[in-house]
């Protein structure tokens, strides 16, 4: 019994430190205002989608909140692999940082989310 509680306490401690150290904040476009750190942006793709993710200028599109009444859209500039399911209207997650008013996505972190389907649809560089 004592061994178990010690183990549990240890586990909690490890968890706490690991989680605090490793967690990233997920924000929707309406919440992004003022955050300058490294975050994950969650939202729905708003067209027009221009550019090329493998070219120097990058893939450019805008993102708005998945649900809710907010009309805030955030411009995104992304380089790297683009999942096949990516298109206007899709829910996506991309990690990155706001620079000069544009959300610059980290290379290869663009992921599409399809909650109602079986197979997790995404590409990740792993």
């Amino acid at each position, binding site marked *: 019994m004592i061994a*178990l509680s010690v*183990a549990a306490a240890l*586990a909690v401690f*490890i*968890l706490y430190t*690991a*989680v605090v150290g*490793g*967690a*990233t*904040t*997920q*924000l929707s476009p309406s*919440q992004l205002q003022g955050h300058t750190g490294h975050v*994950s942006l*969650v939202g729905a793709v708003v067209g027009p989608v221009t550019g*090329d*993710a*493998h070219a120097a200028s990058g893939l450019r599109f805008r993102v708005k909140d*998945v*649900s*809710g009444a907010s009309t805030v859209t955030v411009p995104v500039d992304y380089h*790297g*692999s*683009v*999942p*096949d*399911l990516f298109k206007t209207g899709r*829910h996506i997650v991309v990690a990155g940082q706001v620079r000069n008013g544009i959300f610059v996505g980290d*290379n*290869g972190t663009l992921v599409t*989310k399809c*909650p*109602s*389907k*079986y*197979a*997790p*649809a*995404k*590409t*990740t*560089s*792993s």
Partner: protein
Amino acid sequence: MADLGRAALLVTFGLVVYALVAGALAARSRRRRLALSAQNALFAAFLSTLVAAAVLLVALARRDFTFAYVAAHTSRSLPLGYALSAFWGGQEGSLLLWLLILTGYAALAVWLNRRNRDLVVWVVPVLGLVATFFAFMLCFVSSPFVVAPAPGDGAGMVASLQNPYMLAHPPMLYLGYVGLTIPFAFAMGALLSGRTDERWIVATRRWTLAAWTFLGVGQLLGAHWAYVEIGWGGYYAWDPVENAALMPWLAATAFLHSVMIQEKRGMLKVWNMILVALAFLLSLFGTFLTRSGVVNSIHSFSQSPLGGWFLGFIAIMTAFSVALIYWRLPLLRSKTKLESLVSREATFLYNNLLLVALCLTILWGVMYPLLTEALRGETRSVSKPYYDFFLHVFGLPLLLLMGIGPLVAWRRASLRALGKTFLVPLLAAVVTGVALIALGFGSSTPGLLAYTFSAFVAASIVLEFQRGTSARHAIAGESYPRALVSLVGRNRRRYGGYIVHAAIVLLAIGIAGSSAYQTVREPAHGLRKGQSMEAAGWTFVYRGLTTHQEADAQATRATVDVYRGGSHVTTLHPGKNWYPVEQQTSNEVSIYHDPRSIGDVFTIADQIDPKSGVLFLKVLVKPLVNLIWVAGFVFVFGSVIAMWPDAVEQRRLAERYAPAAASART
């Protein structure tokens, strides 16, 4: 016909409620005929659920679009196999599959144990309780038999689901998930009846093993599906949906081991009750996670009515289990204590702690975004680094324990004896480790540890088989091959278990090789015809594009010649398919299975520009990845051996538990 389906489900609902209420009443007041009646209600519930399932299957086969479910998940052009698999493609159908398997398992389990009357009398109402929830959902919340004016054609099935995996992966998983309900019901039944004996464990041993095997195979199928079809180059992404199946599997693994201790030493009774309830609750939670999309956002939770009901049911079952265990705590207390921290019991205990710790860290990772959103209004989430960290911290010691456990004696092991038995495996591990470092594998510490520990475990497993065979050869004078066969035949659980351990070793090596030692080349710039790129000694030359028409897709493929050290090895064709009906592109990866490294050369056409012919090619060289799939087969083989009925043991158990009848006749 939808009316028949609806009626059949209502009949099922009535029957399982009866099984619950009448069953509980019969158990409390010891009424024999009522107890039998409740049992029969479970058998009948299976029949009526079967009728409902048949109605849905026929509607799917005939593309009867008056069924809203059929219209939403199939189309006229969908091949029959996939149309039938749409049974579990949507929420309502997969609930029906759950209920069908549950009532089927319940009927079988009750029938097989019909002579064990005083245990079964309490198992029936528990099974009735679980079935009542699913029947209720199917009748009143989420029915597959909703009718609507038939559209011209159905919505069709998502392109990425149209492959053989859709036929195998979900049913396998469900056979596993639902299977965990049976040991749970028997455990709770044992607590309700106030029994202190191990009969419930003996009765459900094979059920747990079978469910665990199905769940494991289902996950491997899912991983393979992701690997070859979704094609991002990996097989597991720590997605909540994937974790949903891993968590109950880990809890069930812990349970499978700790019941062995209860059998041998009579210890850990409370722990086993907690574990079996945890495995069951996690299987419910897993179903809930997969079907409700809740983890993406707590807001999508409210979009589906299912979420609230499921959570409520999980809460009720949790409270039920906790209350029951607490109430029977005095009965469960055992007198036996752990004699030594260096004994097989102790290693099993460590194994359990590690498995449960890993399971809980995954659960925490899955729940974290929901909790932070609810408590702080800001969603924070964890990803691969978090999970990888704990996989290493808990998984690597687990791997090592697999090798240590069998070498340690029960009760108490002296250090001298340990030294002797450990010597060869330890030597194997050290030699492997040194050799690997010399060959440059020191680049990844977890990878190196995984390989070294695997060598240790592999050596200890081989030694187990060798020592046992030699002993049999000495005792019975059989030839070595015969001795091996009879050794395994007489100790199916032990040696079947060792084979399963061997499968896990293969899995560990495969995972380590394909993650810690893989090479990934991302396209920095596009390739023009004739240009090449290199990765880990392989050269890839882009030759050009081709297009052709497939059944319902326009396929574009890049021709890539693959060379190793100057000689041509193969030609790969990664590309994309465009599905005009669904307006979607799918990635079609091209993989070369390299026999030399038992691994894969994985090519992805990241981006194709048809006008300029420029290809952005992504390449992954993944050594040893195919061991993962081989491990699956070894896993099943080992499980089947462990599960194989043993006539001698059956006789002994029958004699142990049936003498009440025998003595009555004397």
